[in-house]
């Protein structure tokens, strides 16, 4: 098919949608056996994606399988994917050989407070950017978007010195206090969502004389549930995985979250792969559960910030 021979296509009136569809279908129909071509395409798609999926799943299978082996079974080749016997005791051993329960509790505290902080700070600031008129709003928003790009590594040293000077080293404060100050990413996400909520409902409440904070809490926030869920999920992953801040700010083992705990465990048990894999598995289960519970929201959040941001 040659486009060059159809100059009229450029000036011809655009056919209606239904007509265009029929036209397109008739064009496809002229190619030899379209059904077979479609089937070949589907088969190729499945084969390529299937092979890729197997490769992506191997690390998980390897993790699970090793975590249930004895030390000797690790060295057996060809690999025993289903260990015989299955050594369930590796998991209890992890808790006996290190304060893993403590690490888990600490991580939960950091994650819960961190997520609450992210939600509070970012939703309040996002409300200002989306709903209140004040001088400098545009400029502030531009600055905020620009700071999305600032790598944390550029500010970590002065921040560390500052928290050291005010005596916050070896506490959770340097990790949790900043959580309550709106981060650019969360604020941006929240603001974008607030903008899609029609103002009429707030207007009605305003006419009734309700104060701003009550309108925010009772009208806007309940409508912003998707944004709240997204910020919470991103926050969960961030605080659950965070390694750098606990690494530099915390010195006592009793304060360690699971990230630093697993890192220390890895250096103390460097040759005991089954125990190491069991420890990794334990710290990956909550994020995995979160993923499967909220996959839809996670994808939506990533797409909103990635495609429309």
């Amino acid at each position, binding site marked *: 098919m040659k486009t060059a021979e159809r100059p009229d296509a450029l000036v011809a009136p655009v056919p209606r949608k239904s007509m265009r569809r029929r036209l397109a279908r008739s064009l496809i129909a002229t190619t030899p056996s379209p059904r077979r071509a479609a089937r070949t395409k589907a088969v190729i798609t499945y084969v390529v994606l299937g092979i890729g*999926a197997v490769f992506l799943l191997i690390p998980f299978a390897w993790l699970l399988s090793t975590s249930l082996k004895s030390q000797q079974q690790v060295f057996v080749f060809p690999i025993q994917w289903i260990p015989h016997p299955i050594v369930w005791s590796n998991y209890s051993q992890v808790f006996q050989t290190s304060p893993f329960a403590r690490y888990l509790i600490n991580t939960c505290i950091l994650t819960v407070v961190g997520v609450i902080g992210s939600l509070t700070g970012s939703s309040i600031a996002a409300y200002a950017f989306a709903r209140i008129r004040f001088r400098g709003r545009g400029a502030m928003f531009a600055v905020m978007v620009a700071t999305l*790009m600032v790598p944390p590594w550029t500010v970590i040293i002065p*921040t560390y010195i500052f928290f050291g000077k005010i005596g916050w080293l070896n506490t959770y404060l340097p990790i949790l206090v900043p959580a309550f*100050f709106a981060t650019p990413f969360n604020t941006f996400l929240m603001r974008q969502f607030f903008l899609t909520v029609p103002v009429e409902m707030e207007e009605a409440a305003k006419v009734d004389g309700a104060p701003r904070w009550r309108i925010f809490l009772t009208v806007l926030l309940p409508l912003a549930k998707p944004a709240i869920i997204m910020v919470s999920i991103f926050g969960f992953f961030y605080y659950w995985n965070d390694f*750098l801040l606990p690494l530099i700010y915390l010195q006592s083992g009793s304060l360690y979250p699971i990230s630093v705990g*697993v890192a220390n465990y890895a250096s103390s048990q460097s040759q005991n792969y089954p125990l190491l894999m069991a420890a990794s598995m334990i*710290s990956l289960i909550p994020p995995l559960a979160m993923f499967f519970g909220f*996959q839809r929201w996670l994808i939506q959040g990533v797409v909103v910030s990635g*495609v429309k941001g």
Partner: protein
Amino acid sequence: MAKLSKLERREEIAGYLWVSPWLIGFLIFTALPLLASLLLGLTDWNGVGALHWVGLANYRKIFTADPLFWQSMKVTGIFAVLYLPLSLVLGFGLAMLMNQPLKGMRLLRTIYYVPSVLSGVAVSVLWAFIFNRDYGVLDWLLGLVHVPAVPWLTSSFWVVPALVVMQLWGVGGSMIIYLGGLQSVPTELYEAATVDGAGWWRRLLTVTLPMTSPTILFNLILGLIGTFQVFTQAYIITQGGPNYASLFYALNIYNTAFQDLRLGYASALATILFAITVIVSAAVFRWSRAWVYYAGRKETPA
């Protein structure tokens, strides 16, 4: 200054109050630290005692007499050159394959997406074992197809490619973003192109790529900046070795600041990182004007 009515003034005050969680956070945790980092970079402070001004001596040393700085730039650069194109092509290709109305796509999408949301220490510990030369699964798999074992983590040639492979395990993350971009392309455009006789390749070049170019740009910038933040993998798996072959930029800052306590010198390194980020972002934006197409975005349904 224009006079404001009482109502407008109240709105102003409310605005500043409500925006304060961001504004105060920005000042305390971004603006002031950036300034402080700039100033600290002009000292040789090591955490105790008085600040001793050294002018540009740190920068002179970094650029002329610090092999570790150049090594970290090289490692970070090689990683970016390997990882970014691979993640773009793989992520985009996967997204195109998944963007078909076939059965089972939801399941496949989930499988591809899972690894990308997992990160941090546990994943690094897992991959350190996957790469293990004697008992690791990767060399065992290569052995099945008669490829000799690769010394992934013990060779200064293979260690960065190994970390690229590990990073590509999470390629589903960029795939999801591209998939969102592909799905926001109006189907009318494809129909029109088909009517005009455009084949698969032409549709890709004239419809798909232009319409998704803002998404590609966004991913590219994020990926580039992300490369300068690679830390946990290198810290846990290789500690920058063997022989500094995986000394990433962020790891070099960490070692200088928190192992050697050369806080002044490390601040100069951090300031250079900030300058690089600004320059790279500006350059990519400028360069993107030639190929990023924004006009179509207003027509896409939200």
